[in-house]
């Protein structure tokens, strides 16, 4: 074990995957100069993993024009014909530019062609919300991709998960979208020095508990853990679950937790309507209804766009406070029903 930042863990996974398989290439804007810190290179300040350009050369480190649509489509075409690209799309807000390629090519090609092709390709992007960058850089668009069958959706919340899930993504023969929360990039944690991968569809129970289940996604995970710690002080025992992958979703772990706790709060930084939280809530309302002893509360970003001003933005995302409040509401109702 070693201590690594989330960003460093991504760099490490990329380096190991590139060393393990010559067919792995990195494609993206400003990857040569390592502007975002996961490919080593000229901007040394943020590099923890050496200079990828030097290590792997221009044939495998592909610095691109600003052309997201063809970047995504070309990566798909390359994956259909023998490469295993990792595409760095920098900000998640730029994925829309390539939406047609994601939905109509990446997600559908294997299916439409009856399995003649597979698409081993990974798309990384980071969600820059909470940093006062305004509406164009603050999106958290994973729910819309969850609605597209054929994609796998990954939302790591710790350095350990970031490295292990990225490696599993590269090794997967299916297209994977990884959404990183930029606010997590700097967080540090223990990471094995050896290569490892984390299987998709296996949730992580960060904290066991008996009164309520909190399912938290991405940057809401540390907030949920903090809320659980705070709640413990007032005698409320909250179980915190990080699904880690949204497609496939480990609904067994969530359902069995709710079967024990009888209560569910879902904390999700996406916009409320048709969020991942909506999906998780709907699954539980269908499959664990008999166990539910209180309404399911979603703690999400409300359905507004993201404002720039620091006076406006922070309030919008799920926080330890709003999560703890939601828990108190559902637990309070338990007290009422028991009275």
């Amino acid at each position, binding site marked *: 074990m070693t201590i690594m930042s989330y960003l460093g863990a991504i760099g490490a996974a990329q380096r190991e995957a590139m060393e393990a398989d010559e067919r792995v290439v990195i494609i993206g804007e400003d990857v040569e100069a390592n502007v975002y810190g996961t490919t080593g290179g000229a901007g040394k300040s943020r590099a923890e993993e050496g200079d990828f350009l030097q290590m792997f050369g221009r044939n495998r480190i592909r610095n691109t024009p600003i052309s997201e649509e063809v970047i995504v489509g*070309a990566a798909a075409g390359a994956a259909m014909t023998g490469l295993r690209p990792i595409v760095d799309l920098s900000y998640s807000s730029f994925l829309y530019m390539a939406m047609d390629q994601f939905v109509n090519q990446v997600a559908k090609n294997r299916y439409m062609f009856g399995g003649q092709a597979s698409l081993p390709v990974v798309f990384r992007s980071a969600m820059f919300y909470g940093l006062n960058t305004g509406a164009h850089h603050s999106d958290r668009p994973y729910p819309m991709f969850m609605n597209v069958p054929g994609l796998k959706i990954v939302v790591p919340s710790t350095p350990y998960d970031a490295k292990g899930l990225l490696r599993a993504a590269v090794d997967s023969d299916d297209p994977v979208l990884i959404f990183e929360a930029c606010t997590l990039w700097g967080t540090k944690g223990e990471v094995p020095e050896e290569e490892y991968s984390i299987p998709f569809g296996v949730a992580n129970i960060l904290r066991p508990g008996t009164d309520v289940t909190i399912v938290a996604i991405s940057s809401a995970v540390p907030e949920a853990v903090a809320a659980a710690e705070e709640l413990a002080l007032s005698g409320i025992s909250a179980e915190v679950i990080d699904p880690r992958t949204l497609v496939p979703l480990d609904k067994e772990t969530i359902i069995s937790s709710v079967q024990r706790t009888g209560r569910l709060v879902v904390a999700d930084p996406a916009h409320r309507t048709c969020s991942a939280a909506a999906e998780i809530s709907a699954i539980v309302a269908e499959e664990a209804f008999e166990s539910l002893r209180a309404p399911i509360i979603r703690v999400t970003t409300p359905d507004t766009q993201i404002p720039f001003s620091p006076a406006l933005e922070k309030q919008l995302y799920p926080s330890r406070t709003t999560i703890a409040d939601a828990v108190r509401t559902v637990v309070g109702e338990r007290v009422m029903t028991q009275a």
Partner: protein
Amino acid sequence: MNLSPEILLEMQRRMLRIRRFDERASKMVKRGHIPGTVHTSIGQEAQVVGACMALGDRDYMTGNHRSHGHPIGKGSPLGPLMAELVGKATGVCGGKGGSLHLADFKVGSLGESGIVGSSIPIATGAALSSKVLGNGKVSLAFFGDGAANQGCLYEAMNLAGVWDLPVIFLCENNQYALSTPAHTVTSGVIADRAAGFGMPGVRVEDGQDVLAVYEAVNSAVERARRGDGPSLVEVVTYRFNEHSEGLRLGTDYRDADERSSWLERDPIVLFRRRLVADGIALDDELDELEASVLTEVDDAVAFTDASPYPHPSVAFADLYTDPIGALA
């Protein structure tokens, strides 16, 4: 161009296959034997076959909605293609694709796209993989005059230009996109757009001449194979049928005189004349060729008829390599 008689006859054979296959498919749509609709390549066979035969067997290509002709031109057997149009289990995509989504990876056909323009980046990516892997394969993207107004084409041309990718952008300019005449929605000349993206742009004015198309695409392929990068080839041609079979747009949008003058330039008739005139084949031999192609199509239909429909559970297969339990 010094092409062997075998190759010249193979060109005619493939053009005939496309014609007869699409004629039969058209009938089957009208009789309800093929669900949905089909878009035929009838009238455009020279453009299709000239381009496909300039590619090697292992080279890649992508198509669009009007793409029965492309795999046929590249050498696909007709049976699994026809079975796919009907939605049978023996179809080239197991019945999951249909007319709009044919793909035959065995001949390098990486798939049609029902979404106009959307497959151009895929072909570009196939060229990228050839380049990275150094396997010498070339890639070709077929698209229409209508698709030439999709932005992804220019992103692809630029990317292919800066990376010297072995890809040919082949615009099938049949002068209409559905009901819309190309000249009313195209500013400038498509082939001329190549220059601004640093690559050669060629306009084949007589797209009904299979050899003219072959020659233009062949030099683009040679250039790509040499490592000198991409090219844009625009081929002027005409579709003889309606945009799709069964659609009735009326005739207003295409002038009757225009249509009949193009019908006179039937690429198959023209090439047959030439084969005879140049002493490549006798009329009898060509009659025999035509008959044998008709038999191939009959066999494809018989194969289709004899094939079962896929089991309903097949709807849930092939989405992932590694199935996810999430399907309801």
